[in-house]
């Protein structure tokens, strides 16, 4: 078991360094595109840690959902908006940054103290060969309600997205309706039931 443990330790060290480094990069980079790409790095290293914990299905799902969908969506938003704004340097900006740093350091200290003090019960059960079946069983027995609620939430957001995307704007009288709220475009009224 000597080699396997060594490999595990080294992999864990590499993945943790990657994870923490990428996460710090997400927060500290001034360029938002770098932050978004590094977020993908965070998700991938997290998937690696899941693999190390014998949760292969969870790690693949992590990559599929977070890297393949969420991160790509964030990147899309950043690249399509593409608004370059030069912020004025704040007066006494260091107070803000300093207080943020103090709060973060305090939070980190608190969490590390908790994680060191807590007597974790380390499971001695040998890992399952396949995590897919137990996960599915949980989904359809004791976690059925949260599972279904999550799917309803997704359905709701999908319907909302479709309604937002299907709005018909009136481009011809854009100039005429300047009395309206400046943030909304004139919309063509639409009957709710299709013809």
């Amino acid at each position, binding site marked *: 078991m000597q080699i396997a443990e060594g490999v595990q330790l080294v992999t864990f060290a590499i993945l943790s360094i990657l994870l923490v480094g990428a996460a710090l990069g997400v927060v500290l980079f001034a360029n938002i595109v770098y932050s978004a790409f590094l977020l993908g790095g965070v998700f991938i290293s997290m998937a690696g840690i899941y693999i190390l914990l014998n949760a292969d299905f969870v790690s693949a799902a992590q990559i599929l959902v977070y890297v393949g*969908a969420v991160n790509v969506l964030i990147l899309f938003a950043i690249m399509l908006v593409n608004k370059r704004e030069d912020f004025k340097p704040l007066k006494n900006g260091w107070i803000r940054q300093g207080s943020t740093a103090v709060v973060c350091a305090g939070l980190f200290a608190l969490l590390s103290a908790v994680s060191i003090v807590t007597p974790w019960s380390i499971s001695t059960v040998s890992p399952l060969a396949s995590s897919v079946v137990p996960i599915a069983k949980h989904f359809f027995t004791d976690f059925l309600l949260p599972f279904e609620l999550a799917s309803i939430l997704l359905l709701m957001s999908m319907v909302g997205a479709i309604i937002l995307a299907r709005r018909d704007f009136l481009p011809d009288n854009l100039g005429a309706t300047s009395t309206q709220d400046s943030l909304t475009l004139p919309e063509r009224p639409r009957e709710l039931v299709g013809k």
Partner: protein
Amino acid sequence: MNSGIDLQGTFVQSLSDFGISTELAKILWMPFPMLLMLIGATVGVLVNVWLERKISAAVQQRIGPEFAGPLGVLQPVADGLKLVFKEDILPAKADPFLFTMGPILVVMPVFLSYLIVPFGQNLVITNINTGIFLWIALSSIVPIGLLMAGYASNNKYSLIGGLRAAAQSISYEIPLALSVLAIVLMSNSLSTIDIVEQQSGYGILSWNVWRQPIGFVIFWISALAECERLPFDLPEAEEELVAGYQTEYSGMKFALFYVGSYVNLVLSALMVAILYLGGWSSPIPIELLSNLAGVDPASSWLQVVGASLGIAMTILKAYFLVFLAILTRWTVPRVRIDQLLNLGWKFLLPIALANLLITAALKLAFPTAFGG
């Protein structure tokens, strides 16, 4: 389960006989299949490029590459060498780090996906339980690399190409995953080995195409879209976008994109072969033939013949699909971006969902025929 030749077992066994610990022997074994797969994938690309050029030429009544080697087989090698020796140009205002990372991120997951491609009972790098799901997950990393390449080039064509490619990749992943799900439902496993095993009973009759014809078509269309093959190659539509996200690339980095796209095509063809065309199993089951000929099925030479036949079968099926893709390339014109998204979201997605539901219903109704 463990029939067929087990090269790893034999290797580890023989090294243990020399007094090396089993663990060390396993680690020593690990690089061999990986290296073999890497070389195999690269040679597959060369063969693919040659085939593409020859078949395109035949379709257009030309001759195609002819002078580099017999029948021009060395032409792809010459192309590759040219790309290696070309200058690596970095555009003046491009982002150097992201510009380099883009092609790497595009190529890596594609090569990683070869981990789960089986060529026989034990001829696979890793038989992990999430097999086919891992492939879908890995292929979802590719759009990030494309976005990265598009953004870092600092070129509007590149950016639009990258965005298009990412949008296309995400949209067609869903029908792809749904049609894979129908297969998984029938074989009760995500592992590619189990999926092939489940199809191997009655030769050609037990292949999944007959039970999943709609899924097969949906999967193939989505796979073509994922690979950006011609009816769906609008991320690099040369009339509108010069070359899409590859516009600013040259030399080795361009070669990475090029290799990546062809490896992806071969990989998709292999996946279709595994999921729908019975993987390594031959149209007439080899056990039946050996029984007819009265050969002992456990004899070692039959195992060797079976394994080589399995590899040949997988590759043959894959290259038949590649041929189909090339023929489609010269038959169907490129779709517009709205047609592409309409096809993906309004046609393939509902049909894939219906296919999944029907498969589930059939599985409940006829558990013997649809994997109870």
